[in-house]
């Protein structure tokens, strides 16, 4: 009671820390704009033709000219990438948990899964097209196959990070395995799982595009092939811009979700993002 007024300060609010985080992004935005200005100046002053390297304004022009076509195809790619991304979360996290809890899966399936990562997944795309046709499904599956591994690995690594003392503590309270999972293992793993999800968000977009390169009649990857054939180089770059925006939006949604669900001490932990390959 005596210590009541000299007590601890109010824990920093979520909003305030989000604003601080945004302020850190300001210099990055500045550097990006500077880069665009230099790009514009160099392409203009050196007279680089637009079929080699279009200037930012030419790219913007191509986007505004073709916006309707771009939007329709972007919607297709976004749908494929998002479906593959969501699928890799829905499969990846439970699979990671199962590997941690099952000795058999840990000894047999996990090494196989890790070894399978030496397969360049891009090379799987033609096979998937043979198996699943030309529709949405093969693209979703390619996106999934590229994106889910990062989530599995990070879930496994995170769940194994729970300090043995914390487990002992919970057992001394009489905690069940389920309670230990929910109250210790999952919170400890959460930053790692989110790190995995962030990697997989950008990978899923790559997967969707690769699928569209192989066989498609719509989507940004398909549009890129068309633009390439027609020498519409500014449009090609315009698609690139849209693709990065798409990856960025998915990534940003994950970051937002992370800020909403994780308590401060877990957010400030810098999880080392376990590696993954395309």
């Amino acid at each position, binding site marked *: 009671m005596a*210590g009541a007024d000299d*007590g601890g300060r109010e824990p920093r609010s979520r909003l305030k820390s989000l604003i601080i985080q945004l302020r850190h992004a300001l210099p990055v935005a500045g550097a990006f704009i500077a880069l665009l200005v230099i790009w514009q100046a160099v392409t203009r002053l050196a007279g680089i033709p637009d079929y080699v390297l279009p200037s930012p304004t030419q790219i913007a022009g191509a986007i505004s000219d073709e916006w309707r076509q771009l939007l329709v195809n972007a919607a297709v790619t976004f749908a494929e990438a998002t479906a593959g991304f969501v699928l890799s979360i829905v499969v990846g996290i439970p699979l990671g948990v199962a590997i941690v809890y099952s000795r058999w899966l840990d000894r047999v399936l996990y090494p196989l899964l890790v070894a399978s990562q030496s397969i360049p997944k891009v090379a799987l795309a033609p096979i998937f097209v043979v198996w699943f046709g030309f529709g949405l499904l093969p693209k979703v599956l390619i996106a999934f196959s590229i994106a889910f591994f990062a989530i599995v690995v990070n879930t496994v690594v995170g769940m194994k990070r729970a300090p043995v*003392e914390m487990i002992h503590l919970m057992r001394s*309270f009489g*905690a069940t395995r389920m309670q230990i999972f929910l109250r210790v293992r999952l919170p400890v793993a959460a930053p790692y799982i989110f790190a995995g999800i962030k990697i997989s968000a950008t990978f899923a977009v790559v997967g969707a595009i690769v699928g569209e390169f192989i066989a498609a009649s719509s989507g940004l990857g398909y549009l890129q092939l068309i633009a390439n054939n027609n020498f519409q180089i500014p449009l090609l770059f315009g698609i690139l811009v849209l693709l990065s925006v798409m990856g960025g939006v998915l990534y940003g949604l994950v970051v937002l979700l992370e800020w909403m669900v994780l308590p401060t001490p877990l957010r400030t932990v810098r999880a080392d993002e376990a590696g993954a390959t395309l």
Partner: protein
Amino acid sequence: MTEAAARPPGGGASISISHVGMTYQRRGARVDALTDVSLDIAAGSFVSILGPSGCGKSTLMMLAAGLYRPSSGELRIDGKLLEDCFTDAGIVFQTDVLLPWLSILDNVVMPARIKRLDLEAATKQGRALLAQVGLGGFEANYPSELSGGMRQRAAICRALLCEPSVLFMDEPFGALDALTRERMQADINRLWAEHRKTVLLITHDIEEAVLLSDEVVVMSPRPGRILRRFRVDLPQPREPAIRRDPRFHGIVDDIRALFRDAGVL
């Protein structure tokens, strides 16, 4: 000896350790941590385990709490064979083991949450305990916002929350400054005197052991055995003035001499 036996029994449990040995096996290497340890701890008594670093004190506590299985021998609590973790215990580990993603108050009431007890009552109790150890006002803070000593005090509150019948403490005051340590020692002694639960305190501080305990169990260097047991027949609860009592110094000196003979000092 008769004085302790005549004490009215509290809510504590008795612990009986008979011929317990513990051998760790790690990557082929075997480490004998304890050999043939037998010890009876009466219900409601305050017993300290004193010994040099690495002699197996923490191991003994983990065995008594049922968190480790002994390699040989058996342990009983209130006469019942210990086969799984003993859940009516409060444990203060050598480190604070607070969950970093929970506020101090949430950490302190965690035992009640796991045991599905009345959370409202537990929260009230938790706040009261925190206030007692000078952490009033820090309920909403995260552990990382507190000093090491403050965190250890919060861990002690958590161990006390459900009024367990046995309190295990593994060097709980090690991270505290001299002043806070003295206050916490007095607090623990007072709380124990009020409730008369069984306390097993692990320490390597001779004065602390003698100051607080009914009995001090001295262990040998690894592999740990019990060298000797000292009864401390000084009135409980202990007053600070006891540090000037010649009997207090007599026991402290005896233990020092024992350690010197064992080659520890």
